């Protein structure tokens, strides 16, 4: 179907598919589920960051015969969590590499006794020296991972960077840092596992990727595919935080279920979830940039270092996305990007909305403002002079074949925010006001779908069938966790067949029922999986026309009648489609060259920030987000994605600080890990420009991660505009503002004496 065709359901603000259940309080999250004979399970964790386990003692005051106890020795298959590399044990065996690493599992019918028992296990260690920072890891005096602490590295080169420095009119350098960030989904990680000899393992859980968990369990239990079944329950937020961790948790619960012969529920409380599960990778990014006298980019030399934590998890692919987003949405003939993920003895960092891009975009978009002030050019003008346009090539030499409308997005954002008039007004007001106001901009893209050859390797399969009760059913392993998968895929299927929204249902995300349509990550669901559903629907119509007399034009009723005729003659009414890469897509995994992503979503964000020089608090007063994400499939859901992402980005910039002590999260409570509340978020003004993408479902590109990429640099740029002081590190808390702003006041006072 043409992406410009008029649609009935796609593009309409239809109501969230599972909305009524959620509003009535009857949606069933994992902790709402009870099973006959179910026991709670708990985890005994390491209290030191690195060392050998010398002994495990059990307090004699506890009757341990009542408990099921699982250690690494109980694992029937391989003791590792299967992700990209197999370096992370499911349970520590003789050595621990970070605080809060799982060592022992306990289960007991009484949750109070279980809690007492966890504290009654005494583990003796022979400590080894740990490392906690990128810099310590880089020194390689202590090697805590592999042969050199380098979990992954990339080198990407375009042109000849070193030929440029000598003759460049300007060279600007800068170093930028970002901290860890916790997902803070309001529902903690949790699963239920059951086991019996005949059926094998069944897991129900709060998770993003049922087939990731499935694959991981196969390895841990050494079972054939049909003896492991993974079912997603209603999921109360994920943001990447339930991409890889559920593989670990599911294995733990299943081990206890197998040994105890009881269903096991493991639902973390907030303190355990914060201490033990993954977070966004901290980063340090250095830019060295050459420009000509007109402010055109000549060379970008970028050095990226991320903190991977103790095990590799998804650090390699996060680093890849950071690398590919680090040059920003600009044209530059000479680019060199060297990136490395460094191991430390902290809880492994993992996937989080944006997946490396927020770190990289913070650095380049702060750096663009630093360049602008250094070479004395307006930051808006500097960006305009260097924006990518159609036909330009990126750092990977990908030609921008689809329209790139950054200028148009920027014009709209400037107009909607009244940027120039406000900047002028603030410049007049600020000198006599204790509250300094400023405006800041960030320009960026986010690549939709898996990087490079990723989607080809995934080789996703998805489709639809018709149920005997007369519903079209969407068959995908892609999960709903608030972002709107159910609604969007239902809209796509209803539109593609030409039936009503209520004629379509979602199959449960259950590996026993649905094919592997890939993980629900990387802003791929609407664009990639949606496209598979669109194709599967067209294929189904063709099938019914050929074999069941479906007419050229038909009503819903006629469609389901034809389906039943087909069923009577041929059996199941099902249509599945496998991923096909868009044509002319080339990617070289070795040289990191070619089409890094099939499509890009583009955005300009503007923040209006007030810095109170009495309290040293920074407040985002107003926020504008203008973006091009292809066709908008549902304006209410799309707006919600942008607003939610912006709010998380504001938290990333100004509120959310993970405090580590010996690699353990010291502020692992909502009392002292602070996210923005209803009183902290500004009004967020959202505008879409729509350019349908030929290879996405009804023209859709990715949307989910994009909005989290821009707020941090836009806000810190606004703070620089307000105060004249550059901050190059987030989170930026009042104490950080105080330190630098007071230091400047002292210097200024000294100068006036």
């Amino acid at each position, binding site marked *: 179907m043409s992406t410009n065709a008029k649609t009935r359901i796609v593009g309409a603000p239809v*109501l*969230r598919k*599972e*909305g*009524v*259940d*959620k*509003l*009535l*309080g*009857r*949606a*069933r*999250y994992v*902790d*709402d589920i*009870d099973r006959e004979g179910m026991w709670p399970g708990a985890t005994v964790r390491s209290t030191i960051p690195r060392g050998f386990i010398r002994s495990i003692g059990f307090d004699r005051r506890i009757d341990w015969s009542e408990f099921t106890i699982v250690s690494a020795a109980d694992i029937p298959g391989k003791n590792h969590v299967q992700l990209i590399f197999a370096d992370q044990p499911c349970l520590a065996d003789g050595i621990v590499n970070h605080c809060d690493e799982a060592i022992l599992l306990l289960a007991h019918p009484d949750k109070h006794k279980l809690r007492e028992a966890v504290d009654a296990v005494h583990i003796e260690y022979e400590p080894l020296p740990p490392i906690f920072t990128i810099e310590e890891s880089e020194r390689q005096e202590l090697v805590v991972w592999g042969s050199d602490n380098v979990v992954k590295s990339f080198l990407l080169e375009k042109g000849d960077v070193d030929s440029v420095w000598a003759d460049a009119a300007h060279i600007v350098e800068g170093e930028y840092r970002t901290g860890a960030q916790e*997902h*803070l*989904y*309001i*529902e*903690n990680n949790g699963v239920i596992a059951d086991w019996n000899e005949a059926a094998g393992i069944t897991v129900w859980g709060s998770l993003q990727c049922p087939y990731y968990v499935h694959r991981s369990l196969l390895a841990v239990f050494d079972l054939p595919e049909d003896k492991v079944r993974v079912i997603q329950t*209603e*999921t*109360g*937020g*994920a*943001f990447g935080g339930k991409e890889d961790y559920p593989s670990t948790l599911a294995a733990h619960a299943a081990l206890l279920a197998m040994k105890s012969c009881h269903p096991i529920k493991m639902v973390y*409380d*907030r303190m355990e979830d914060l201490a033990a599960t993954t977070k966004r990778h901290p980063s340090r990014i250095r830019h060295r940039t050459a420009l000509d006298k007109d402010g055109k980019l000549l060379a970008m030399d970028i050095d990226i270092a991320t903190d991977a934590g103790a095990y590799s998890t998804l650090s390699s692919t996060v680093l890849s996305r950071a690398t590919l987003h680090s040059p920003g949405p600009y044209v530059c003939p000479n680019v060199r990007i060297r990136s490395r993920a460094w191991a430390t003895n902290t809880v492994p960092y993992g996937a989080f909305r944006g997946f490396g891009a927020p770190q990289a975009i913070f650095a380049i978009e702060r750096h663009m403002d630093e360049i602008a002030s250094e070479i004395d050019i307006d930051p808006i003008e500097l960006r305009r002079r260097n924006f990518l346009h159609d036909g330009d090539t990126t750092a990977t030499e990908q030609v921008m074949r689809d329209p790139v409308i950054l200028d148009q997005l920027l014009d709209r954002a400037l107009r909607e925010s009244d940027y120039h008039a406000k900047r002028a007004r603030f410049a007049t007001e600020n000198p006599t006001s204790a509250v300094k106001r400023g405006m800041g901009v960030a320009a960026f893209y986010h690549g939709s779908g898996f990087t490079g050859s990723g989607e080809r390797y995934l080789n996703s399969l998805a489709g639809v069938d018709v149920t005997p009760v007369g519903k079209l059913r969407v068959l995908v392993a892609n999960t709903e*966790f*608030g*972002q*709107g998968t159910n609604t969007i895929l239902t809209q796509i299927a209803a539109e593609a067949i030409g039936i009503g929204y209520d004629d379509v249902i979602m199959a449960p995300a259950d590996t026993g029922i649905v094919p592997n349509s890939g993980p629900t990550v990387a802003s791929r669901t609407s664009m990639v999986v949606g496209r598979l559903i669109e194709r599967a629907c067209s294929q189904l119509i063709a099938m019914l026309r050929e074999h069941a007399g479906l007419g050229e034009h038909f009503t819903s009723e006629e469609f389901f009648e034809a389906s039943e005729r087909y069923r009577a003659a041929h059996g199941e009414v099902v249509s599945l489609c496998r991923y096909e890469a868009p044509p002319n897509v080339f990617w070289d995994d070795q040289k990191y060259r070619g089409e890094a992503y099939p499509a890009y979503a583009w955005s300009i964000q503007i923040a209006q920030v007030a810095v109170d020089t009495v309290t040293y608090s920074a407040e985002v007063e107003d926020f504008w987000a203008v973006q091009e994400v292809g066709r908008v499939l549902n304006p*209410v*859901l799309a*707006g*919600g994605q942008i*607003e*939610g*992402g*912006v*709010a*998380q980005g504001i938290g990333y910039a100004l509120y959310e600080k993970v405090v580590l002590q010996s690699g353990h999260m010291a502020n692992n*409570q*909502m*009392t002292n890990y602070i*996210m*923005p*509340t*209803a*009183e902290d*978020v500004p*009004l*967020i003004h959202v505008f879409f420009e729509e350019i349908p993408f030929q290879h996405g479902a009804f023209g859709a590109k990715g949307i989910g991660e994009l909005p989290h990429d821009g707020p941090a640099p836009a806000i810190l740029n606004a703070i620089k505009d307000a105060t004249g002081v550059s901050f190059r590190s987030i989170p930026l808390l009042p104490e950080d503002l105080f330190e630098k702003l007071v230091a400047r006041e002292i210097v200024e006072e000294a100068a006036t004496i």
Partner: protein
Amino acid sequence: MSRSQCMLRFTVNGQDRAVRVFPMKRLLDVLREDLRLTGTKEGCGEGECGSCSIRMNGALVNSCLVPVLQAEGADIQTVEGLATSGSLHPLQQAFLQCGGAQCGICTPGMLMAATQLLSINPHPTMAEIREGLAGNLCRCTGFIRIFDSVIAAAARNQSSDQAVHAR
């Protein structure tokens, strides 16, 4: 903590309920485990996130911080008590239409906070809405569409007020 259970009585969503429980058991757990009213959620267990918000004797409380003993004789309302005879409460309808619920885990608590707000202030200003919902954390929406939902429900109040005046 008392080791012996006791019988407690209170009203939940208009129905008289009696439970034999430990008096220091959290009201949240009594609702979820003893009464199987699982609409009320636990997010943090320390009164920060508001997912377990319920109304008790006309006040908004975090049920994770209330020992059930304190609920003796109380009139309690949970999310399950909002809809009447199969039709959504105006706030539920507004949340559905405005996109006020995404993942849905904060939604029951958010709905109770919004119900409480509109019960004492049927036409709140934006600042009053923000203040009224400040104890309830939502990680998905950025709150914007939750504000829209409360405004939409309040507008329905307004039109029903006007209908009353017109009569």
